[in-house]
């Protein structure tokens, strides 16, 4: 398929936006996870409590939905919960006060108006994704692939989160870096500074993207701050100042409180809850899921346990996993850098502590913005297949099964169409067959025939299958990254 520049089909972009927004609105009555209650609680906290209590309060220990995102996100919630529009909705009676009140976990059922209001904030925040995609994608096909991904539909508009906005900021930042490479004069500096600002802002909103920080550092240092191995002082100082400023600013209101150290410690303990364990309840499809399976098998079959993975060992392994990306990012072209981002995103998904399945979107969405040649496309198709199927257990009700299946089929078929004809290799057919069997087992056979025995088995199968598939994607992404890096040298 030919690549079309963006000025073309602007009516299509608006039309697609309206179409997709209608789809999201129709999802309002669907399943909501506890993340809905979590975010509602954060609205309540930021609206009703003074700043110094935001990270401390747990409503007399009646809630587990305490604030555990960095300060910028708290301010984002604060903006929503105290905006003039929200106040008008409450005062005119359209939104009940209870929606924004501090409620204990056993009594926090939201009213219908509350659900609509809250889902509405997610739908509106998706504009950030669209803006980011518009600035980062060079072709219309990439744009569509980025904004139409069903993973975001399931995570944001059903399960409930704000991933779209976060990823929008990320790809916006990446887009600025790409634009900055070929810019001249003031635009050159502006793009790089904007990229640093956006990424720093993202870090203060959701620290999930922290593993990408060394990558940014290496890339910007080597391509923007160094020339002929000499440090460009102005460039270095400007980005350092912007980064430091953006990172520090959201914490400032907490630092000027009565006991700043205590505030910082509390925020740190909330942001990095190492007590939660190596794997999430649903066993995200990463290396640790395979490790846990191996551990259980070793215990059952041979009677010994595999060594325990402490948070520090995990961090060490994570850094090791990121190293290839950091190496390739030194003086890389923007294209190589983007491969590094995808690779590092996958590394952090595979090796980090207490990873959630949602984190796979950090690798998928950036890849969507730039996948161009045959190998990229193949990686994208495989990554989506295993990554999105790994998300299936999150929407576990049978009611959402048709939604998951139809949106996945629709997106994969559209992707396949936009990519022109890609020949499927034998390994792809094998992988697809595996995925098919796993999904059938997870969604149809187990619930009807085996449930309630072996409750964890389908989750295990899904995690392991997707983990194996994603490891292949991880290696493949690394391969493409190294290839791109060696080609440029």
């Amino acid at each position, binding site marked *: 398929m030919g690549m079309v520049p963006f000025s073309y089909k602007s009516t299509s972009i608006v039309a697609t936006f309206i179409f997709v927004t209608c*789809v999201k609105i129709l999802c309002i009555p669907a399943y909501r996870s506890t993340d809905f209650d979590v975010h509602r609680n954060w609205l309540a906290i930021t609206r009703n409590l003074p700043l110094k209590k935001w990270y401390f309060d747990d409503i007399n220990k009646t809630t587990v939905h305490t604030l555990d995102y960095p300060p910028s996100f708290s301010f984002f919630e604060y903006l929503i919960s105290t905006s003039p529009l929200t106040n008008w909705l409450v005062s005119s009676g359209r939104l009940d006060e209870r929606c924004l009140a501090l409620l204990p976990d056993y009594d926090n059922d939201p009213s219908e108006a509350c659900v609509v209001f809250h889902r509405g904030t997610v739908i509106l925040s998706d504009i950030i994704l669209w803006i980011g995609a518009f600035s980062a994608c060079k072709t219309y096909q990439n744009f569509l692939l980025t904004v139409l991904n069903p993973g975001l539909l399931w995570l944001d508009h059903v399960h409930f989160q704000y991933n779209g906005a976060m990823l929008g900021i990320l790809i916006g930042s990446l887009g600025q870096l790409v634009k900055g490479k070929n810019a001249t004069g003031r635009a050159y500096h502006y793009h790089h500074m904007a990229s640093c600002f956006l990424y720093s802002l993202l870090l203060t909103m959701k620290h999930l993207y922290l593993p990408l920080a060394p990558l940014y550092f290496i890339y910007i240092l080597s391509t923007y701050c160094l020339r002929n191995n000499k440090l460009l002082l102005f460039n270095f100082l400007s980005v350092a100042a912007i980064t430091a400023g953006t990172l520090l600013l959201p914490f400032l209101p907490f630092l000027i409180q009565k006991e700043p150290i205590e505030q910082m410690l509390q925020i740190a303990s909330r942001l990095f809850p190492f007590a939660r364990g190596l794997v999430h309840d649903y066993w995200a499809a990463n290396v640790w899921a395979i490790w846990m399976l191996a551990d259980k098998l070793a215990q059952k079959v041979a009677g010994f346990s595999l060594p325990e993975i402490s948070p520090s060992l995990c961090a060490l392994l994570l850094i090791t996993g990121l190293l290839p990306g950091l190496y390739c990012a030194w003086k890389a072209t923007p294209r190589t850098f983007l491969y590094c981002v995808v690779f590092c995103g996958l590394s952090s998904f595979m090796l980090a502590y207490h990873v959630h399945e949602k984190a796979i979107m950090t690798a998928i969405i950036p890849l969507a913005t730039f996948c161009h040649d045959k190998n990229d496309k193949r990686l994208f198709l495989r990554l989506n297949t295993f990554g999105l199927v790994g998300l299936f257990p999150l929407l576990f009700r049978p009611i959402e099964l048709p939604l998951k299946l139809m*949106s996945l089929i*629709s997106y994969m078929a559209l992707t396949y169409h936009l990519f022109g004809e890609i020949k499927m290799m034998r390994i792809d057919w094998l992988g697809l067959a595996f995925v098919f069997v796993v999904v059938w087992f997870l969604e149809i056979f187990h619930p009807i025939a085996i449930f309630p025995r072996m409750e964890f088995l389908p989750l295990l199968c899904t995690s392991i299958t997707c983990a194996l598939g994603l490891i292949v994607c991880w290696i493949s992404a690394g391969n493409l990254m190294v290839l791109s890096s060696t080609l440029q040298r």
Partner: protein
Amino acid sequence: MTTSLKISMFSTLILLRILVGYQPHSGQDNYHGKLNAYGGDYEAQRHWMELTYHLPIGDWYWYDLEYWGLDYPPLTAYVSLFCGYFSDKLIGADSVALYTSRGYEDPIHKAYMRATVLLLDTLIYVSVAWVSTKGSDKLHNRKSLWSLTFALTQPALVLIDHGHFQYNCVSLGLALWGFYYMTKDHFLNCVIGSVFFCLALNFKQMTLYYAPVVFAYLLGRCFSKEAKFFLSRFCTLGITVIITFGILWWPFLYYLPSQNQDLSTGERLTHVIHRIFPFQRGLFEDKVANLWCALSTKPISIRTRISESMQPLASMGLTLTLILPACCKLFCVGKLNETSPKHHGDFQLLLWGSASTALAFFLASFQVHEKSILMALAPISLLVWSDSCFTHWFAIVATWTLWPLLCVDRLEVAYSCMMTLYLVLVWIFVDNYPIGLSSCFNNNLMTRTILPLSGFGMLSLHILQLMVPPPSTLPDLFPVMWSIAGCGMFCISWSVTCWHLYYGMGTIKDKKI
């Protein structure tokens, strides 16, 4: 058009139906507060699954008539039995337990019910839309994909079947299959078509709206070869119809209800027919966009001017007058089928004709329900390339007239989303095919007068209803305004269908695009 694009489009259209299915169904949580009969159409359908699954066949039309008694023809009952069986096995005996399952509301059971509608929709309606819009050659592939998209994104159909909860897709799909086969060349196809049409009639009696024009067309087909073939053809069709009806109806003639062991066959038959055609109810009930409702507002107040006994006759007379143009034309078309070698477009003309009679019945007939507009919408939705401006306009108007019903069902959000989606699709369509916003029927009148005026009118009424509460002396002001405006637009629609039957043989594809 690659296969993957078609798959993507299909999945998206099914996804839309699934998403509308997440919205409340009619009578969810007994929202209307009815005490004697819980809920609405959804509970009625569930109740029929319950009674057909548990009771002997003789009792089906006799059991507890006050609580959602069965009032559709036998095929609905058989389909309900099938669905009830699987509900019992997949969801649990609680969902269709005799008597104790009344008012049963469970999210998984709701998903099952929605799934039955979706499955039947896909098997019967989507299939006929696919088959009848398929392009004859590769050149027209993109256009057939557009046809299919519009045929399957009809807001009114999706909202009523997958939102409100009904099985219109089955009867409409079967009727369209009937039309598809009937209009093919060989006479055997007419027989197959008439079987499908009988099945449609036996699923929902509203399919009778199409019956006059189907009868006229088939009669014409009987005449289309030499005179000696007329009798054999006529008898073949007659026997086919009798056999089809016979197979479906014989249990109700043979088995006796357990309560009333000494009813004669005739009495049983009359009872079932009275359940299906409740003529005792009167000219109209709620505010519907038909002539009788519109004319019964003051100062015309037609309901008081015509006496009760005259009303059925007046209704019948007016209906007969309005269906006449379509029937005459389709009779001639049928007659020409085998005599004129250059004939084509029978299927299109039959679609126009059936839309015409459906509108005629809707406007002038007895006990019309708002949802009956779907009978006119289904054929018209397949005619995008015949007259795209009118098709899109009619789709919007039909959905708009359903607004009062959808408000009661709390489907306002679904309505807004589906209307917006459809308008966006029309926007993209017109962007790609500028001729898409033109009409064969008096282009200027349609696009410059009717379209903007009606669009403005519909939007204004929506805004008015949102902003201004109705005065206390006229509490039903808005539904009445809806029915009057709807009636006017349907009268225009009926004229357009008649025009297309007599003058409109050219389709847009013949003109330069």
